[in-house]
């Protein structure tokens, strides 16, 4: 009941800040482009896919068409997750710093609920808003593609859940930074640095951070950081494989949520110890 109230309140808060509407507006715009651009034509040689009236491929058999569609869906999912990461973090990062403002936090903390519940309610609210947008975009684009091309790929729908999971993992970084800094700006910048820059140094550590020193302890620390922090890039790169029904590496699907849960736990612990 309390978590549900916090979740619904997050929707109202983001709706009031217009960000939810802007997010849905961008999705609608992309969906309209897909709707207008995509069409298909049948011939004896197979099905031809058209983009803005231009054939995207020679006529192909059903199997090859399904592969082609999954490639398009992979591109759409990639674009969507990039947009969600960028705009979703930007739109929802204020939820926790705003709740920590004097005069607001006093009321929240005087209520009969644990502090971690407040934090979790806010995180669920942010993830819920992003999930709603993913459901809207993925669901609508899946319908458009299905109706226009006749290919109904269920893995594309499942990828929506994976994207939500990846965003939830990324958001644990936002929660942690929001608790320690009480600043929306720092939370956003920190999350962007983590999402866009950290992979270069952590995933690509062998060609970057390893070059600094050959010391075993140093490299163990670098490795430790890589395995301790959520491997979001590894997770998202598997989403494309999931849609294309290619082999999926499941380790990031386990590692990222576990790591995100640990980061959330540390944030909750710090939040619990803070005097307001």
């Amino acid at each position, binding site marked *: *009941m*309390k978590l*549900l*109230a*916090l979740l619904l*309140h997050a929707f*109202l*808060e983001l*709706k*009031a800040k217009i960000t939810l509407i802007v997010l849905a507006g961008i999705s609608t715009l992309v969906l309209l482009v897909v709707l207008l651009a995509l069409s298909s034509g049948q011939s004896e040689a197979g099905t031809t896919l058209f983009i803005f009236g231009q054939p995207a491929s020679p006529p192909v058999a059903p199997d090859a068409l399904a592969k082609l569609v999954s490639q398009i869906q992979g591109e759409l999912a990639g674009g969507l997750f990039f947009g969600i990461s960028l705009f979703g973090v930007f739109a929802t990062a204020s939820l926790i710093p705003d709740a920590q*403002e*004097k*005069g*607001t*936090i*006093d*009321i*929240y*903390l*005087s*209520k*009969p*609920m*644990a502090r971690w519940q407040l934090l979790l309610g806010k995180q669920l609210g942010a993830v819920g808003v992003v999930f709603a947008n993913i459901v809207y975009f993925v669901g609508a684009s899946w319908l458009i593609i299905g109706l226009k091309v006749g290919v109904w790929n269920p893995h594309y729908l499942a990828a929506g859940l994976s994207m939500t999971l990846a965003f939830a993992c990324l958001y644990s970084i936002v929660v942690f930074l929001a608790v320690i800094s009480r600043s929306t700006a720092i939370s956003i910048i920190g999350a962007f640095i983590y999402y866009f820059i950290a992979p270069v140094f952590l995933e690509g550590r062998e060609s970057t951070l390893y070059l600094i020193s050959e010391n075993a302890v140093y490299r163990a620390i670098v490795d430790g950081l890589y395995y301790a922090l959520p491997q979001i890039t590894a997770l998202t790169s598997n989403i494309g494989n999931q849609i294309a029904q290619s082999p999926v590496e499941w380790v990031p699907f386990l590692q990222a949520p576990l790591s995100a849960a640990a980061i959330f736990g540390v944030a909750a612990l710090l939040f619990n*110890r803070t*005097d*307001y």
Partner: protein
Amino acid sequence: MTAILCQSLSKTYRSGLIRRREVHALSDFSLEVQEGEIFGLLGPNGAGKTTFIKILLSIARQTAGSAFILDEKVPEAKIRSRIGYLPENHRYPGYLSGEQVLRFFGQLSGVSSGDLSLRIPSLLELVGLAQWRTVKVKRYSKGMMQRLGLAQALVNDPELLFLDEPTDGVDPVGRKEIRDILTGLRDRGKTIFLNSHLLSEVELISDRVAILDRGRLLRVGTVDDLTSEGSHYRFTLEGGLSEALLQEARARAYHLQQDGEKVTAKCADSHELNQLIDMLRRHGVLIRSIAPERSSLEESFIRLIKNEEAG
């Protein structure tokens, strides 16, 4: 049942990583508040009043000592379902209506949806916001926000109510209405803990008050107790006092001041007052009237704080 009990409560705020600074917000603070009373906590800015409430509500943690609310040890989350709190400078989301604010915080207080549907209209009626229930709170005046804050504090029908500057920004008519609401709640057995710098407000409704300064408890008692310290009597005499009689009275340690026919006397108690009357009558002084003059709570408060500052 004791509504609030705290023993040797201390709170030290520490800041700075290299040059550690310490601020003692509360020092060895002990207090007991009985159920069903309106208790006022007074003190200058920075005395530790809000810190005390925050410790009781687990918004801040004490450095030492213990506290109990309604016989439950602090911090205990479930006890907060029996407490209402109106913080100072509270903020509500401007995009919600008054009704939505009450519903949201009522849900967080664990009140069922059915109870909220019944309670919210009556609460808005009680605080005079019934006509504004669907209006977004960003359009509310400061006084209306205070009324909404009071309704929010009452949304879970609490046994104990903490109010931090509840009449801040409220016009005189509104203040009277809030006072009436609070006395009505007390009559229904609720305990009200009031933090305020508006001493006249506190004086009007509090059963007992405590005075806090720089984190230390200076006095606790009824308003009568506090205002009787330093109280005096004003005599109106026929023809005033002769210089000789004035000297004699002062020699007997009566604190007298004469201004024409008016004489002001400080007496420790009614026994001393009667001795003074006997002495005046023995000397044939004709007394027209005797009127007790008490200090206001504000005067008592200022005197206590100044004495404390003087050491």
